[in-house]
């Protein structure tokens, strides 16, 4: 919600600077941004009372004092005698109506009203509606303006199940369903109460006589309606958070005053229907308890002064004002005091927790570390899937209607991870995931499972480069005794995967409980130190691979070559490793195969770019006597 800085000042006896005001708003817990002397506020959902100039200033009064910023119509007003029936007083315990008839048109708005439109970017609609919108900004109480000439028969309010269509004042047709708070005439819905009025009774620029409705609806009756019918509404936003049950008549008197500021009033009548439910909550005065909650030592006098400045009544007990729906306990009052003192001004006091012996065995972390030591990378996947089995758990309201089940296996997620990396030119992939899986039979069951997927080269080192990851590798990894099959290793067929790769894919899924513990008993437990590296963004451009075979005839230079190759450095060089090593005893020479992988974060590398890098990287070796790259 947006507020004009100068409007707020009218409500404060001191006149703080924008900076000072901003600091106090943060202290009170009201986040905001400031642009051209307009505060764009974000309030927590419990502070509906702050959604107006008067509401926000009530919080600020504790620092900047209180001013009476506006006039209200004080004269006696004739009773309306409206033909109105409230069939649901439990959701609308108080409602007031003002009938007002004017003469002439407002030629231009007074600055306070005009600024609301020009500085906050609000759209003018018609005279009565404009005042209604402004009053909601000023006092936080939504009102609805009916064209009085359209209300010819008994007006009924009720909270009932209705399956009718309704045209809003914005011209949108909505189909009501379930329980709704509605106003109706002759069984025709004329307003979705607390959310939006209807087209058939709306005021227009030619309306001279209006019926202004001003109600208190319990939040529970309004919550969810604007979302359900996709009707963005300031009224609903405020009613959902709770308005002040004692403010209705004052609001209507303020309405009259604003009308009178602009045009002549021909006639006014007012009526309130009150079920008498506006009793104020009371909380015992207990400053000791407040001090105990906060860990401070505040004197009672100061405590009561703070609360008084926030609008609380101080009697034998603390009287909670009717606009504060969020205050019901000593802890709530403690928060009020903490806000006034400032959370940052409350001193820290040492906390020492007596440690209890944690007997957890940490098997999962040991297992993870065992796999990581064997070259596996852990992945984490979302559980949402399209795959449906009888035992799958359904999501009632999925984000994607095609993924409305919870996975019952880790296989498809891991396969997707593998294929994603194959498409990114990865030739040695070893992934694992450990996750709870949920299934239903008669009831929902939970099982922690390990999924492993492998494909491609066993490793990039020269001993394993030409070997492929296979069934035997997985069996050995998990120390499987072939006579006692504890788990099944599955080869996933590539037929349906439509991949160019030919490497076999192997998959294994096993319940954590079934993995022999001796496998990982010597592995480390959970890490207690972490090196928070600075991540480098991943390139979206393709990589290029170049293989070179060095012939080292001068064996004296062997160590220097190996050292040099182990420490290659170029801005486009992403990876380099020795994939081949061969001692030719006949010729008394060594052959070393090196793979260089180039990739840029900025663009796809051209042949020239790569060649330039290759030349710079390898020239120092080529220049050495007794070392050559056959074919280069």
């Amino acid at each position: 919600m947006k507020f004009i800085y100068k409007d707020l000042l009218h409500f404060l006896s001191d006149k703080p600077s924008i900076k000072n005001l901003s600091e106090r708003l943060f202290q009170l817990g009201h986040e905001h941004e400031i642009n051209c002397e307009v505060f764009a506020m974000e309030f927590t959902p419990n502070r509906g009372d702050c959604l107006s100039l008067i509401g926000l200033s009530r919080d600020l009064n504790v620092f900047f004092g209180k001013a009476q910023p506006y006039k209200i119509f004080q004269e006696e007003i004739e009773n309306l005698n409206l033909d109105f029936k409230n069939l649901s007083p439990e959701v609308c315990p108080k409602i007031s109506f003002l009938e007002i008839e004017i003469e002439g048109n407002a030629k231009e708005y007074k600055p306070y009203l005009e600024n609301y439109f020009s500085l906050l970017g609000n759209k003018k609609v018609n005279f009565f509606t404009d005042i209604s919108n402004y009053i909601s900004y000023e006092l936080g109480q939504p009102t609805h303006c009916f064209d009085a000439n359209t209300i010819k028969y008994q007006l009924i309010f009720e909270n009932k199940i209705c399956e009718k269509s309704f045209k809003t004042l914005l011209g949108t047709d909505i189909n009501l369903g379930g329980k709704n708070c509605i106003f109706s005439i002759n069984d025709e819905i004329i307003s979705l109460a607390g959310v939006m009025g209807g087209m058939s009774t709306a005021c227009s620029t030619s309306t001279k006589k209006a019926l202004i409705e001003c109600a208190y609806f319990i939040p529970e009756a309004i919550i969810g309606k604007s979302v359900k019918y996709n009707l963005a509404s300031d009224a609903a936003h405020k009613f959902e958070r709770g308005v002040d049950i004692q403010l209705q008549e004052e609001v209507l008197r303020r309405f009259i005053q604003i009308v009178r500021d602009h045009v002549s009033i021909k006639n006014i009548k007012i009526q309130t229907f009150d079920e008498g439910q506006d009793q104020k909550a009371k909380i015992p005065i207990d400053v000791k308890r407040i001090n105990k909650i906060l860990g401070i030592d505040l004197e009672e006098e100061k405590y009561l002064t703070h609360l008084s400045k926030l609008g609380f009544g101080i009697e034998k007990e603390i009287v909670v004002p009717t606009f504060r729906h969020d205050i019901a306990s000593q802890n709530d009052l403690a928060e009020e005091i903490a806000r006034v003192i400032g959370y940052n001004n409350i001193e820290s006091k040492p906390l020492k927790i007596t440690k209890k012996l944690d007997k957890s065995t940490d098997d999962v972390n040991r297992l993870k570390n065992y796999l990581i030591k064997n070259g596996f990378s852990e992945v984490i996947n979302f559980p949402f899937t399209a795959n449906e089995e009888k035992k799958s758990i359904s999501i009632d309201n999925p984000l994607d209607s095609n993924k409305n089940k919870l996975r019952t296996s880790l296989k498809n997620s891991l396969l997707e991870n593998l294929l994603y990396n194959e498409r990114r030119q990865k030739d040695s992939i070893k992934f694992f995931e450990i996750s709870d899986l949920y299934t239903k039979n008669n009831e929902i069951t939970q099982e922690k499972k390990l999924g492993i997927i492998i494909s491609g080269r066993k490793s990039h080192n020269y001993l394993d480069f030409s070997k492929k990851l296979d069934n035997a590798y997985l069996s050995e990894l998990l120390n499987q005794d072939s006579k006692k099959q504890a788990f099944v290793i599955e080869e996933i067929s590539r037929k349906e995967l439509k991949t160019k790769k030919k490497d076999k894919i192997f998959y294994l899924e096993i319940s954590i409980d079934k993995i022999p513990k001796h496998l990982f008993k010597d592995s480390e437990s959970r890490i207690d130190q972490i090196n928070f590296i600075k991540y480098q963004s991943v390139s979206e451009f393709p990589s290029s691979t170049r293989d070179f075979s060095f012939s080292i005839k001068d064996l004296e230079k062997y160590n220097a070559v190996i050292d040099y190759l182990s420490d290659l450095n170029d801005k486009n060089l992403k990876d380099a490793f020795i994939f081949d090593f061969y001692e030719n005893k006949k010729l008394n020479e060594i052959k070393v195969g090196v793979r260089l992988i180039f990739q840029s974060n900025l663009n796809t590398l051209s042949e020239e770019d790569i060649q330039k890098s290759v030349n710079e990287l390898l020239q120092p070796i080529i220049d050495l006597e007794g070392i050559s790259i056959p074919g280069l």
Partner: protein
Amino acid sequence: MSSLDKINPPAISKDIGTLHPINQTKDYLLNLLTQIGFKEVHGPEIESEDFNFDMLNIKKSHPARQMHDTFYVEDKSNVLRTHTSPVQIRSMLKSQPPIAFSSAGKVYRKDDDATHLPMFHQVEGIYVDKDVTFSNLKDLIHQILHNLFGKDVEIRFRPSYFPFTEPSAEVDILSKNGKWLEILGCGIVNPIVLKNCNIDPEKYSGLAFGLGVERIAMLKYGVNDIREFYKSNLDFLGQFK
């Protein structure tokens, strides 16, 4: 060296994989809490509304309970937990103070954009004993944030609102570029929650806090897009060895 006999083949460096950076961060936080005295507890990701909302004083009318915020499963019989707090509720029901529990894991909310994911990770802690105060909570939060971001980090507490804590606070740290960054939520456990867990709020009080693991990981590693964590890209994962 002129003979092949004296040549040592190149050293074989063993391939080492990677623990997922989110789990690295989560484990780091859990270890830190264990060192402070918290005991790790676990619970299911599919929860009843009772444990996920009601016991935590999140009323039926609260927006978080609506279908557009929470994933409901099996004809609204349960929810995918929206936080790890129900784990603490379950554990408190089985214990009496003094208690200090930490819980961590996946949580789900119906969000999917550049800054929010439908699944993310939380680490939470709760401590209940006699005379636990807001100033104790501040001390604990300072311990955690000093460990994470260094002793010199500037910390700010702001009033906030959570149904399960009162008073509630959000905590920011001052980043190097001079902007305040929201790091965690915390507060004094609402006496209603203690009562729901059969703990006498007249005798005991508690503090609670929760951190988003992705948020901490993004800040510590310098990852700008939360979605990177879940692409399972080896070029990404390989950086966190």
